[in-house]
């Protein structure tokens, strides 16, 4: 079930890495921001899935919209001479860490509850 998305990740990476030229360096920051936003959406989806409130439409729209918005925000920040780039990096970084922590907690709780249920069943 996870194999298909995972292989898509690798295929996408290799296809672009091997076939497309590098983008101009001044774009690199915006691409980095977009990647961060995409990662944030992915981790958020994982958490929502564990909390059983995963919604596909919200996930897909959030993934693309956040990516574009984050890059746009950084771009306008540069145009205005404000380092909004840093604000986006910090905000997304904190969100990713929060969601990862929450995901870990949910995993552990699920494990503990499963074991408790098993011992209860055995008794």
């Amino acid at each position, binding site marked *: *079930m996870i194999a298909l998305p995972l292989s*898509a990740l*690798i295929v996408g990476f290799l296809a*672009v890495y091997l076939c497309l030229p590098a*983008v101009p360096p001044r774009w690199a920051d915006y691409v980095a921001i977009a990647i961060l936003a995409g990662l944030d959406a992915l981790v958020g989806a994982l958490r929502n899935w564990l909390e059983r409130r995963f919604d596909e439409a919200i996930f*897909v729209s959030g993934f693309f919209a956040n990516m574009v918005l984050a890059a746009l925000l950084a771009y306008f920040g540069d145009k205005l001479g404000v380092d909004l780039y840093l604000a986006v990096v910090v905000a997304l970084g904190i969100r990713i860490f929060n969601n990862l922590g929450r995901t870990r907690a949910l995993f552990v709780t699920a494990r503990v509850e499963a074991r408790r249920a098993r011992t209860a069943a055995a008794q």
Partner: protein
Amino acid sequence: MATILAQRKHWIISMTVVCLVLGGLLGVQVHTQQARGLTEVGRQTGALISRLTEAEAQLDKQQEEIERLRGLLAEYEQEAASEKGLVRLMTEELGNARIALGLIPVRGPGIVLELADSTMMAGGEFGGQDVYVIHDFDLVQIANELWAAGAEAISINGQRLVSGSAITCSARLIKVNDVTISGPFTLKAIGNKKNLMSALNIRDGALDRLRVLQFQVKLMPEDEIVVPPISVGSRYEYAQPFQKEEKQ
């Protein structure tokens, strides 16, 4: 059951699309970073570093060129000196011209002046710190006094003053001949010791003003001082010799 399965399939497809896009973006970024790592270090530092090393290399090359040309000049001069008469006279004239241009080190009697910022720096009674540090105009004033008193060669922190020398200030740094110097300052001047001393020590003169504000001023006459040559010679790009023949 069937609906759950269908939902699941859907979910995997959208996840796959998302992962494909994310993978592509990662590919772009890794590629770009690899290309960028070769030319730049950070967002800005890299470019500045490379510009600095470039400028330093250029400076080295130009200084080598100066050395080469000076050697050549000395060679010509030696050849010329071995001949007699008019050539000898011209050699002498050339020697004087080179002293005036500051191309060669010169020695003779004169004065050495050591200058450092005021000891009243911290907690001074007047305005900011500006009052208690040595400025470009202080050095200009002292150099002018020395020239006026008949100094024949002057240097500030090893920078020879010649006809085209500028003493300027940019961003709180003093530049002499376009070379940045910083305190404490040592001025050397060759000339009549007595005249030079009295020119600087004149009442209400440059040093008097500095002494009142407790600048560290040390003025000494010396029997033998050496003033170094100018480090970068002047080039004449626009000025050309002009002879007024017809109106004589």
